[in-house]
């Protein structure tokens, strides 16, 4: 970052206004950020100072006099970010009601910029957006990104989501090149631990069942149904290798199970399925706590 403007001097046709609300009509703006692709963002110094110690230090070092180029009486700061990144970063900083970026690439770029300018609160806001939105399309990729950006919470969510994808469907992405093979290996190890934990929990569920510890399975038919459900889930686990309840208990499995016992009351069958789901999730949460 420097106070110097880009090599083509201001006023040449290469420079344009940033999109609203950061164009030259922005009220009270007192500084101009020039993006990497030469767009002028008219912004408020105070907002930048407030969220970023880096900008704060810079502005306070100016002491009134500003060297370098000026537009409409406002000093120009050249930044390395692209206008899209800068636009979204500023949206996070400004108190406007705007849709946050809905794509992970933009979020990553904005987060990198936020880290660079030491905007701790903004980083939190971005994480929040990433966690809330359903942009976890490729969990492995998000995992790699989260490790790279040091987002531990997102990393856990992403790691959990990877469990739903069979190992051989893991896709390659550029971000894997910035992750160490050791981390990747640990993710695999953790997956196997989850796998074993779920398998053990299911087996145990079956055993407790046969001993009649669970009151609603006392009738032999229900007990048989429960152990059939367990065997379905275990074989699903063995074929897919995905220790996650929504993969193991997919619609096909549910239907197979329900069709097998047409005479048994539906509600008791659903109770079995629900308690199995709870068993899987509980086993996973125990492993997750340890990771």
């Amino acid at each position, binding site marked *: 970052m420097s106070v110097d403007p880009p090599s083509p001097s201001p006023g040449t046709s290469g420079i344009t206004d940033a999109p609203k609300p950061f164009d030259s009509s922005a009220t009270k703006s007192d500084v101009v950020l020039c993006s990497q692709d030469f767009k002028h963002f008219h912004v408020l110094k105070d907002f930048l100072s407030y969220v970023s110690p880096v900008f704060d230090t810079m502005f306070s070092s100016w002491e009134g006099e500003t060297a370098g180029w000026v537009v409409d009486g406002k000093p120009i700061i050249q930044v390395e970010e692209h206008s899209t990144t800068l636009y979204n970063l500023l949206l996070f900083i400004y108190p406007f009601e705007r849709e946050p970026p809905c794509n992970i690439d933009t979020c990553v770029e904005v987060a990198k910029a936020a880290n660079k300018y030491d905007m701790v609160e903004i980083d939190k806001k971005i994480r929040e957006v990433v966690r809330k939105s359903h942009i976890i399309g490729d969990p492995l990729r998000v995992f*790699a990104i989260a490790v790279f950006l040091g987002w531990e919470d997102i990393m856990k969510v992403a790691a959990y989501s990877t469990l739903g994808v069979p*190992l051989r469907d893991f896709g390659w992405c550029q971000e894997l*090149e910035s*992750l*160490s093979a*050791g981390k*990747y290996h640990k993710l695999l190890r953790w997956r196997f631990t989850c796998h074993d934990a779920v398998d053990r929990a299911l087996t145990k569920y079956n055993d407790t069942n046969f001993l009649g510890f669970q009151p609603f399975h006392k009738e032999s038919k229900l007990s048989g149904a429960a152990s059939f459900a367990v065997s379905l889930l275990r074989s699903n686990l063995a074929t897919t290798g995905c220790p996650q309840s929504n993969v193991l208990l997919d619609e096909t499995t549910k239907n197979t199970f329900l069709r097998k016992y047409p005479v048994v009351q539906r509600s008791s069958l659903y109770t079995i399925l629900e308690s199995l789901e709870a068993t899987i999730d509980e086993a996973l949460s125990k492993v997750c706590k340890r990771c």
Partner: protein
Amino acid sequence: MSDLPSSVVTGNITDAPEPFDSSAKRADVILYSQDSKKFYVLKSLLCLASPVFETMLSSWKGQRSDKDKSDVGMPIIPVEEDSTTLYNLLLLIYPYNHKPSSAIEICFGTGKAARKYDMDYVDKKIRELVMVSDILGKEPLRVFAIAMLLGWEDVMKAAAYTTLGVPLRSLGWCQELELLTAGDHHKLLQWRFECHDAVISWLSRQEGPSLTSRPADAFKKLAAATLREELKARGCPRSSALINDTTKATLLQKTPGSSVSTFYDILKKLAEGIDQASSEVRGHPRSRHVLTWIYRYLLILNAIGAGWSLGVSQLFNEMHLCAPGASWLYNL
């Protein structure tokens, strides 16, 4: 060339172990290891093995030992390697009968040093050492990682095939994995799945309708089916892992009273077929020598220009930058 560390002055330097101690005959150069040991070596052998040392010694302006019989004294070359690495490296250069250690850490260390000093035939010797040692079977993933870092394509390939014989979850973590990228690991994993599929489909073809009802054909069919089940259960697309004592016992139990030798012949053919099937996955590896050369060039430049100040971490970075061995994986 930097001056010797202060330990020389304080005097806690010791002689290297035999045969590189001060009693070494005709020694005319001293290599000074990172842990303050003096190796008395032959200049001619060093220069023969390494063009880097040759260049360096042709116009030596650095420190020399005290003048004694000769009028200038021996050149003292401080090197970054510790005495264990240096000792094993020198054993590979000298025509002695001492066997250098085949411990993986030492091979890694000497391998790095051999690369650094551009010692082609020493590098080849170390690779051979690794190939015949049992570390390949014990820690294939580790050997794979190291081979990839050092650009040992042949070792890397052998190690990759050995990993196929180990269940995925039994492949242990090792420090060297931190030096590879997740992308490298990912490619190995995906390649494994492709081998898995190739072996499965090859075995399925062996189960096809046999034309005769000869016991041999029936056995072949049964064996292929059994091995396919074993592969599905263990996920190891490698003959050594599939044809194990358990599967052999199961097969012999299922077909009692027939000629055992015929069965072993059939199993042997199946084993060959299995390994053939995985070796055919995406053709033969090719190497990209350009990268290796850039990498070497960088190392030599660094070694000469920066007066041997090339740190280990930097060395790794550069290796990673060019990842000479990675080409094998990228060509898959």
